[in-house]
């Protein structure tokens, strides 16, 4: 089950090597995103798209807010 986390957790996990993934459409990602995040829009999130992620490291997903 995915774990909901807050901003402090994000900073801690990223410092420990977690991968950040923004799941908004590419245009919104290009406009603004968290440092070092990669973009995999939700509509494109499949096995092929996730090959760029490292399996052994934690993954943090986010979008704009609680939507």
């Amino acid at each position, binding site marked *: 089950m995915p774990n909901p986390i807050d901003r402090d957790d994000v900073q801690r996990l990223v410092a420990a090597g977690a991968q950040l993934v923004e799941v908004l459409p590419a245009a919104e990602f290009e406009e603004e995103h*968290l440092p070092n995040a990669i973009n995999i829009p939700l509509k494109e999130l499949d096995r092929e798209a996730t090959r760029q992620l490292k399996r052994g490291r934690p993954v943090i*997903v986010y979008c704009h807010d609680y939507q």
Partner: protein
Amino acid sequence: MSPRAAWRLESIGFTEVYDYVAGKADWGSAGLPLEGTRGSETRVGAYLRRDVPTCQLDERLSDVCIRVRAAGWDTCFVVNEAQIVLGRLGRTTLAREDDVSVEEAMSAGPSTVRPSVTLDQAVERMRRQNLNTLPVTTSEGRLLGLLERDAAERALRELNRNSARALSEGSQA
């Protein structure tokens, strides 16, 4: 959206998946850096005066007045030990000579904005509400600094000039 993405990643086989549910709106509202084409120079967070004076609830107003005036300011924010804004001492209050506590003298719960608000929105609000300054805090209420209207209006004019120039150069290309 992100909860569905997190579940989808688990279904693909990722075993350690976290969902930052508050997302980039929360990140920006804490004054943390964002990357991308929008540029931080369009946000209030880029124009703060971070040296704005602060004081504690239990200080004496007279002591704070001396300190604030000596630093060249005419306002002071009342914060707790976590820098959460509890009140404000304005120009009129700081001119008083009464021997009272800051808690008795302050105006409680001043309006604030987040550092991720765009500069044009902040300027529009200051004009509409006839404000000379806007305190800027994180979404938790931690003081980040003060946005001054003069500086904000100057910066906005500069941004608009640069934007118009870029548009003009683009149309000539």
